[in-house]
């Protein structure tokens, strides 16, 4: 299984190498360029990420058999490949949203931090060893703490950064404790060798360490009860960062969760299925119910993203290796659809917030008269979140529920569909503000709402992506299936 070093292995980490190079270039140019030229740093980052995306997709494809590289530190398979592309895409879109942000756009360190965090996510998705995994998670998280608190002049942003740091450090410590227990019990750090040793452990020890590890992962995917940071951080953090947190960072968490559960804990499969099912039910129900009461769009999206973590967990539960085994494939598909959709939602919020300076739902009154195009983007994004065709969110939900039914978790699917009804209610409520309500002061509606070029480009890309995922879903699904198959 272990592959001795040869130079072609470098090809497998090409995206990571490119990210490091890009980060270095941006850092150097940030120092060299005059402040007025620094807006180009954003375009440079976008183009660099696009190039990395294309190169990764074409030359860095994994071999048909999964390999453990660099002494087992990294695993080169279709899952990590798929997720790395997703992260690169997410980072590129986030950069587009940040470019014209007053506080972020001209700061080279913003782009560098974003790139480093993306690097961490890439490593998370491919980590094959507990040590690598921990390092990757920290590489992802530490830049994100700073990004969340990036606007130092804004109390809310600072608070967000600090809160995120405290929660993150706490859960990461618990998770590390879990890792050390696993090592202590088995004497192994490699995920794929752990499984053999852990099988002999008594169940309580196994489940105990699993629980500790799950704490860290639950924080990453913002599952209840480790979700408390999400609303405050999303509200306070700069909107593009919040979008990145709720999509790419969450997807990275799920990549790790799937890999660790299936690679290291196959012995405890029925137990962790029950545990995750419980987590899914609580997460989606709490997320949806709390979302009902929100009046701030970013907080609403925070709770909605908690609820979506719950739906995705349904897919994680629905492992059924004897049958069609749709579960993990549906998770990958869901994450892709969710990434596009939620980025579009946060992008629309960022576009609007940049001009109006408010994220309150009241400010969105009359938006469809003020900017029909932006209103339409919100319509697409929110209907996709609520699971309406012909958008990606519908297909993703159907796959997840289908996976649950196939694996005989019908009650879980029923709770899932009931939850999606609650979801529909608050998404429609927001659309009511956008399409139905009028501003008290009708002149407000006449004010122009410019959408600058990077925003327009990103939003159009995302909307097209959402519709493609919702209509021409076969290639994406096959891709998700290939990725998920490499887990087993």
């Amino acid at each position, binding site marked *: 299984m272990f592959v001795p070093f040869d130079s072609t292995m470098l090809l497998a980490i090409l995206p990571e190498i490119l990210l490091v190079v890009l980060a270095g270039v941006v850092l150097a140019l940030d120092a060299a360029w005059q402040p007025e030229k620094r807006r180009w740093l954003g375009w440079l980052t976008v183009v660099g990420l696009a190039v990395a995306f294309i190169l990764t997709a074409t030359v860095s494809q994994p071999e048909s058999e999964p390999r453990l590289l660099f002494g087992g530190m990294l695993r080169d398979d279709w899952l990590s490949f798929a997720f790395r592309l997703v992260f690169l895409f997410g980072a590129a879109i986030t950069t587009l949203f940040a470019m014209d942000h007053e506080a972020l756009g001209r700061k080279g360190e913003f782009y560098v931090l974003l790139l480093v965090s993306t690097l961490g996510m890439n490593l998370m998705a491919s980590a094959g060893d507990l040590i690598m995994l921990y390092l990757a998670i920290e590489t992802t998280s530490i830049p994100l703490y700073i990004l969340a608190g990036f606007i130092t002049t804004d109390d809310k942003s600072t608070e967000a950064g600090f809160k995120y740091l405290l929660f993150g450090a706490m859960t990461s410590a618990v998770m590390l404790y879990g890792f050390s227990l696993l090592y202590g019990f088995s004497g192994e750090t490699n995920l794929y060798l752990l499984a053999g040793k852990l099988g002999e452990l008594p169940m309580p020890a196994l489940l105990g360490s699993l629980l500790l590890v799950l704490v860290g992962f639950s924080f990453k995917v913002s599952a209840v009860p480790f979700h408390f940071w999400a609303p405050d951080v999303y509200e306070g953090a700069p909107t593009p960062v919040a979008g990145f947190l709720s999509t790419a960072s969450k997807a990275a968490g799920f990549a790790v969760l799937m890999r660790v559960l299936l690679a290291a804990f196959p012995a405890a499969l029925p137990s962790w299925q029950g545990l995750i099912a419980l987590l899914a039910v609580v997460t989606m129900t709490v997320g949806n119910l709390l979302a009902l009461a929100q009046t701030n769009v970013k907080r609403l999206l925070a709770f909605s993203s908690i609820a979506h973590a719950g739906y995705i967990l349904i897919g994680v539960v629905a492992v059924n290796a004897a049958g069609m085994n749709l579960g993990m494939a549906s998770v990958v598909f869901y994450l892709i659809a969710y990434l596009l959709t939620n980025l579009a939602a946060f992008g629309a919020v960022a576009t609007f917030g940049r001009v109006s300076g408010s994220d309150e739902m009241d400010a969105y009154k009359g938006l469809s008269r003020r900017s029909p195009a932006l209103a339409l983007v919100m319509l697409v994004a929110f209907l996709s979140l609520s699971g309406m*065709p012909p958008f990606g969110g519908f297909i993703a939900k159907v796959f997840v529920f289908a996976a649950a*039914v196939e694996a005989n978790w019908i009650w879980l699917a029923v709770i899932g569909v009931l939850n999606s*009804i609650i979801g529909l209610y608050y998404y429609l409520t927001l659309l009511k503000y956008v*399409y*139905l309500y009028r501003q008290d002061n009708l002149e407000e509606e006449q004010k122009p709402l410019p959408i600058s070029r990077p925003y327009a480009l990103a939003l159009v890309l995302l909307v097209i992506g959402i519709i493609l995922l919702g209509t021409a879903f076969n290639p994406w*699904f096959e891709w998700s299936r290939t990725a998920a198959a490499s887990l087993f």
Partner: protein
Amino acid sequence: MQFPILSVIVFLPIAAGLLILLMPAGRKTEIRVTALAASVAAVLLSAWAYLSYDLAAGGYQFIEKVPWLPFLGISYHLGADGMSIPLVLLTGVVMLTGVLISWGVDDRPREFFAFLFILATGVFGVFVSLDLFLLFFFYEIAVFPMYLLISIWGWKVTREYAAMKLTLYLFIGSVFALVGALAMYFQSGLNTFDMLELEKAGFSAGFQQLWFPFVFFGFAVLGGIFPFHNWSPDGHVAAPTAVSMFHAGVLMKLGAFAALRVGIMLLPEGAQYWKWLILGLATVNVVYGAFIAMVQTDFKYVIGFSSVSHMGLVMLGFSTLTKEGMVGAGMQMFSHGVMTALFFAVVGMVYDRAHTRQIPELGGFSRVMPWPAVAFVLGGLVSMGMPGLSGFAAEFPIFMGVWRVQPWVAIFSAIAIVITAAYIIRVIGRVFFGPMPEHFAHGDHAVGDVNVLDKVAIVVICVLMVAIGVYPQIMAPLVESGVQNILRLVGGA
């Protein structure tokens, strides 16, 4: 390869809708003309499909099948049979008349027509889907634009409440049906969502009895079945005129049709098992709906509850699982569709001019708007089941079918005809005849006649109602061939 007429019919509206969205918001006339052109094209195409359906061959025709997600056996599979092709025509007709009636929409007409056309695509799609997944796909597309159409352009007093209520009811219904559909898919083990394949899956009786209610009632919510009919009158009343027409005229048929196609046809033993419950509930629909319509003072609520009552007849026809009942139900779907579209159109015309729908405040409108008055009387006769009009051709077979199954129910539900006559005549008498209130006859609020577009819409519908009534053979054999197809599965006589 033959001309993909069904695909063209299905995607024409959404393509026109997107085109309209791309036009500048200020060009209202161009937007309306585009909408009209698209709806004329849709009605012509659906009429062409209707006329070119080969009755001798029967079965599903105009079939198109393209794999969509081969791993799960999802395909883009369209086809129409005698049951669905009249409904396609109905949708075309309602779309055309709806656009004609909506000429006066002045608040964001671009979005209005775009959403209305997206809705139309969903409706067409459901009627011609032969793939279970595709059917859901279109079903949801047909539901969500409703929310926006009602909440944005609806009656200010209740629109938010009604729109949300309607959307949640329908969404709840559809997700339960979805779970049922997934259960069928996995149980069959055929790895296909193709309904023609699933028909042959041979589900066990226990499975069918368990899942039939999920699927049937999940869809029948949209068909307005008691006790899940509550969203419907509120929704009808709150919706703008064209949307009420679509809603009562076509969308409720969508629910009934999907309940038939997925519930009864795929789970026939379940239908046999549960038919008494459906029969009972449908009877409540018919009689209770008529009684409630009788006591309404709001003109539009009268029509709203009359829809509940008439859709009950459709369900009643289904529940008999006999040839007569089913043929009647199929005819009734079309007949009620055009009739109720006419009713709502006329209500809209009256309301636009009088700005009230309270029946006691109205009167004498036949003098200022004779065309709508005549049309309404005609529609009223249809809804009472007067021979020589389409209502008779539809309701008579339904009662025949019910009689064969349970004569008492036929007798009891026939009461509804009397009540229908009572409330329709009351409305006609109060609104269109009698003395006209002074402020409508003279002064600033004087009421004028309808415009020529409204008249065209009225005439189109009236011609259909009379044509089918006088000569049911233009539709009955079609529906019969569709029913044969269903009975083959249900095993009834």
